[in-house]
Each structure stands twice: as structure tokens, then as C-alpha cells.
């Protein structure tokens, strides 16, 4: 058991993946000598050389498109997109090509490409550096999407993503890159199924589902609620495609109330999908409508007002109050 940040955990996970799989390679902008703008690939080019850690031309469609070609040739590329808002030049390759290649070929071809995207706000940055576009990708069949919220998951999820034969996007909560936690690097047995949700805190009065950057916020809200005598269960979703509805359903069957929190705009977001599914699956257990806590229907606002935009403890507690009032 060692302690490290999420950024370091991904770095170590990538190191292990490169060492274990000679056909794996990293591709992206500034990931070589600089080690990426968040230093997540720090030191890897020195260890594995420029054929395994590739500083690509500055072209997102080019990065994803050539990764698809490499995967068709038997390689396992891991692409870094520098920031969430810059994935869109590569959106076409991801949604029309990467997601569909296996299906279009009747299962003859596989394209095990991993795409890493630092996402979300809260770092006081300029526009296009704070977005949460996960729903746009979750809506696309053929892609898998995971998002770690702690160093242990980050270390293992990146390696599991490289092993996965399906294309997979790993959304990395950039404002948590420096969050420290324990990582068990020894036993592969400590790596949980990346597509299963985790119940982080047990409770009986309501369930809060969150993922990625909002997991610590959800936990803090549950702790605050406990001071008011409310016993709240917290689930870290971990996987956004597929979503582990079984774990959420089981929790809601017990608590009768559900709050889903994410940074992405509420409208058309994953919260709506979760609310709808849980209404179908556990309608008779629900004591209140599922309440969503998310971003507003606006482009991510300027940094000076992002505090007002981002769901925080109080916004989750307000939702909890509303749920409890039914």
C-alpha cells in the first residue's frame, strides 16, 4: 500500500501498461519530454522511447484516426486529449469510426483504443478547459466510459482500459489530479471490475449518486447531512457506459430516495438517464421523484463565477431537503 495522487497513479498505471504490453503506446500533444500539461505522462518517454510515447502533431482527429489505424494493425494506443473542450475536432473519428468499427465489420475487427480526457471545472481556467462532455459520448453505442474518483481506481482503471478490447474513454477529474489516497499496487486482486459502481457510504434515508470530481462533494454532503440526523448512502458510479443500474436500484430500493449529481448541464445529461431508469426499475420503492443536481443550461461560465455553476455541498443538501419533504 502506497500513497499517491491521482495524477501519479495514472502515471504509474500507464508505466505498468507500457511495461506489460509491448504493443501499447501513448499518443498525444506534449506528452513526451514535457510529460503532458498535467504531467500525467511524466518520465515515460525517457523510459520507453519516442515510438511508445509519441508526441503527435497538433491534431485531435489525427490522433484518434491514426490510433484507429494502429489498433487495426494490432496495437493498443492510449490517446491523451489535452483538455475536455478540445476533443471535438476528434469527435467525428470517435463517434463515426472508433465506436462503430467492430459492429460494421460484423465483429471481424476490434479497435482497442483508449482515450484519456482530463475533464471538469473548478480549476479557475479559461474557456474550453472546464467542460464535462461525457453524455455526448455515453449516448454513442460502441464506446465504454469510465471515470475514477480516487488514486486506487485511477491506477487500476487505466490498466484495465488498456486491456479492454472495446474502445474506452477514461474521463479524468482534473481538479482531483492532486487528491492523495492509498493505492494497492501489489495485487491485481485489488482491482475491482471497472464497470461496477461502488457504495462508498451506507445509509438508509436517501441515496446520492455521483462520479468523478463530485464524489468527494457527495461524501461531504452526506457527512453534513449526518449532523442533521440523516443517514445518506453514497454511490460512486465509476462507469458511465455501461452504468451499473443494479447497484443503484438496490440502494434506492432500500433508501427510497435518489439524488444524482454531476457537473455536466442537467438537461440531457446522464442524471436524466439514471432518473428514468430508476423510475422504471424501482418506481414502487420511490418516496420522492429522483432529483438531479447539475450544471446550468449555458456554456461553462467564466472562472470568476464557476463557484455558482458547480454543484457543491449546499446544492446537494438542498436537493436532499426537497427529496425528504415528500
Amino acid at each position, binding site marked *: 500500500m502506497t500513497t499517491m495522487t491521482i495524477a501519479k497513479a495514472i502515471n504509474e498505471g500507464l508505466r505498468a501498461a507500457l511495461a506489460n504490453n509491448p504493443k501499447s503506446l501513448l499518443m498525444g500533444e506534449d506528452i513526451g519530454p514535457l510529460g503532458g500539461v498535467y504531467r500525467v505522462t511524466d518520465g515515460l518517454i525517457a523510459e520507453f522511447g519516442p515510438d511508445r510515447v509519441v508526441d503527435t*502533431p497538433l491534431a485531435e482527429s489525427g490522433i484518434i*484516426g491514426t490510433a484507429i*489505424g494502429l489498433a487495426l494493425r494490432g496495437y493498443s494506443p492510449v490517446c491523451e486529449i489535452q483538455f475536455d473542450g478540445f476533443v471535438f475536432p476528434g469527435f467525428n473519428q470517435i463517434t463515426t469510426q472508433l465506436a462503430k468499427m467492430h459492429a460494421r465489420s460484423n465483429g*471481424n475487427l476490434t479497435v482497442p483504443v483508449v482515450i484519456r480526457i482530463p475533464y471538469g471545472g473548478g480549476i479557475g481556467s479559461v474557456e474550453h478547459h472546464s467542460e464535462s462532455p461525457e453524455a455526448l459520448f455515453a449516448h454513442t453505442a460502441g464506446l465504454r466510459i469510465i471515470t475514477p474518483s480516487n488514486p486506487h481506481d485511477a491506477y487500476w482503471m487505466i490498466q484495465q482500459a488498456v486491456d479492454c478490447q472495446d474502445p474506452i474513454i477514461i474521463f479524468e477529474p482534473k481538479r482531483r489530479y492532486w487528491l492523495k489516497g492509498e493505492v494497492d499496487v501489489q495485487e491485481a486482486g485489488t482491482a475491482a471490475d471497472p464497470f461496477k459502481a461502488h457504495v462508498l457510504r451506507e445509509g438508509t434515508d436517501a441515496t446520492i449518486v455521483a462520479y468523478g470530481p463530485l464524489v468527494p462533494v457527495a461524501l461531504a454532503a452526506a457527512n453534513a447531512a449526518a449532523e442533521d440526523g440523516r443517514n445518506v448512502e453514497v454511490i460512486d458510479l465509476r462507469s458511465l457506459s*455501461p452504468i451499473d443500474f443494479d447497484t443503484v436500484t438496490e440502494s434506492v430500493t432500500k433508501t427510497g430516495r435518489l439524488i444524482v449529481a454531476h457537473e455536466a448541464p442537467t438537461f440531457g445529461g446522464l442524471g436524466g438517464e439514471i432518473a428514468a431508469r430508476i423510475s422504471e426499475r424501482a418506481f414502487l420503492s420511490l418516496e420522492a421523484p429522483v432529483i438531479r443536481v447539475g450544471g446550468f443550461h449555458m456554456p461553462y461560465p467564466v472562472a470568476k463565477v464557476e463557484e455558482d455553476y458547480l454543484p457543491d455541498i449546499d446544492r446537494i443538501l438542498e436537493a436532499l431537503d426537497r427529496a425528504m419533504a415528500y
Partner: protein
Amino acid sequence: MGATHLPSTEFDGTAVDDQLEAEAEAAMGEPPAPMVQLLCPEGKLGTHPVFSEYAEKLDPEKLRRLYADMAAIRRFDVEATALQRQGQLALWVPLTGQEAAQIGSGRASQPQDYIFPTYREHGVALTRNVDLAELLRQFRGVSNGGWNPKDTNFHLYTLVLAAQTLHAVGYAMGIQRDQKLAATSDPARTEPAAAVMAYYGDGASSEGDVHESMVFASSFNAPVVFFCQNNHWAISVPSTVQTRIPLSNRAKGYGFPGIRVDGNDVIAVHAVTEWALDHARQGKGPVLIEAFTYRLGAHTTADDPTKYRESAEEDSWRAKDPLIRLEKYLRTQHLADDDFFAQVKADGDELASYVRRTTHDLETPDIRNAFANTYVEAHPLVAEELAWFEEYSAGFAAGDSDEGADAGPGTQADTEAGSR
């Protein structure tokens, strides 16, 4: 990296390099790129300082083969168009006029080379031994592919314009890595060097992916040949809307050779492509070939060319027909006689009847295939929806037997079933 890359803002005062000056002038004045042509429309063979050597490798047997291939694919095209008109295909994308560009380039490739086509490369498919009936699966609406690319190193058709040019470069980067891995693991092992070919059109050349693919190919010196068929029209838009300069000139901007070839001259296309593939396989980097040709018919069976172009233009290109040109040459050189051409025609008719027969028989897949192939690994949402679908379908099966024999055509139950 580091000190050797220190930028300088100083001119060192020496004379500007002649070559650079000439290039700058050329870029500003844009003299027309010379077009490689060996077999002229009258059927006479000319010479070229670089490519004649490659053309000489085409012995009489190979030349007859090129003719037979072009004739076969033209016959196939006629048959597929007829199938579409008869409602057997959802759409057809004809290639008539482009036979030389496709057969010439496809026949120049080696089995170990990997080809990324767009959606009109039926002639290239033929040279890669793709079963042409399988090629029709996509247009019949029973598959989004239809063949296994691994069997023939001929990738699936790509309908999103230019997307495959990047896949080609990535694949070529994979070949480079394979060579290095092979050299380190077993230096004695010699595998034939391989290259990749990416096909795209004059319209697609405007897509950003083509630009990005050329930047990547150039930066990594990837063994890839870009094969642009400039057939002058992107549906209804002429190539002048896509470019002010010969498309082959663009290669210069990326730092690799660009060759404009007469795309209706199968001998020149073969020679140029063989040269380019050799160049790529030898580790010398990418090449762009622009095959200057013409789409004689409609863009697809959904198109009406009379709305946007003059028939005189088509007529002028008919005079450059790639088949007639080679036929003239074969006859004047006494390399083929009436019997040969009669045999080619008979073989074409046989191919057409085979395709017609097999197309009718292409079986409609079960939608369960789509459930099975959306992901490689098990996915709970797919499993859940499949389970729902099975139950729903089973409900109808039970319903059918309940309602008994007298629920004949036109009944309420039938109408409902028909609209689901």
C-alpha cells in the same frame, strides 16, 4: 530537443538557396504539374524517364490481365446498376470511367499491402480478390461491410469522407513498429516490407482529415501512398470548388512527392503506383498520386448529372476511354486478338450472372448479430435490451398461434405487425 532547437531571428546573409527560390516562384505562379502519361488515347505507348522502367515490367500476359480486369469491373458495374434499378440494391455507386485508375493501382499492390478504400473502389476490390457479390452486401442493406478485411487486406468501405485516410496512416505507423519489433526479436526473420494505400476523391481532399493524415504521414515518414481519384465531380460540385491548384501539388507542402498521372491510362497508373509503393516500402516515406480521371455516369443511382453538367463534357471524356485505349494498343501490337476479346466478354457475362444470382441469395441477417457485435466484451445494457427484445418477439410468436389460422391477410393483427 533543447539547445539545438534554439530559435534564431537573424538572417545569416548568405544567398537564398536556388531551390527554395525556384519553389517559391513555382508556388506563386503554379505552373501546371506535368501529367504522367504512357499510353495515349490513340493507343500508342510513349516513354518517361522514371516510369518507363516500371511499364516495361508489364509483359503481354499482365497487360491482357489489366484489360480483362477493367472489362470485368465495367460489366459488374452495369449489372449492379441494373440490380439497383430493379429494387434489389438500396443504392449503387458506379465506377465507369475510373477502371484504369482502380485496376492499375490495385494490381500494382502486393498481397501484404493494406488498402483503405472509400466507397467506389469496386475495381480495387476485384484486384484484391474480394468476392464481388459480398461487396454488394452493403448496398443491398444486409451489412455495413460484407467481407472480412483480414482475408484480403482490403478494408471496409468508409462512407464518412476522408476518415479512412487517417486509419491508413495509423496502420502504416503500425507496420513501422512491426518491423522494429521483428528486427529486435528475431533479426534473421525477413518479412516482405509492406505499405498502405488510402483512396479518396477530389471532394474528400477538402476534408480536414486528409490534411491531418498528410501531416502525420510526413512527420512519421509512414509507408503510405495516398491515391486520390480526381474524377472532377463531388456529387454536383466541380473540382474547381475544392482546389485552385493540381491536387498533386499539395504534396509538396507536406514535404513528399506528388505525382499527377493520367488516370485513364492503366499502364501509367500501374507504373506510378508500383514506384510509389516501392518508395514507401523502402522506408522513403509517403507519396501522393492524383489520378486525373472522370466519373462518366452519375455520382450514385440517386443522382442526376444533367442538372449540373454538359453532356459535351462527358463526350470529351468518352474519347479518352481507358478500355478502348488499351484495346487499341493490344491489337496494334498483336498482343490480343478477337478471340481474346470475345473471351473477356463471355467471362464478364458469366461474372454478371454469378453476381445477380448470389445477390438475390444474400441472406438477411438476424438483428441479434447487431446486439452481439456492438461491443467485444459483454455489456449489461446490450444484454438487457436483447432480453427485452427476445421476450417481446416471443410474445408475438405466441400471439400468432393464439389467433389461429383465420387471421388472414388484411386483418387488424396483420396491419399492426406490418407497421412495427
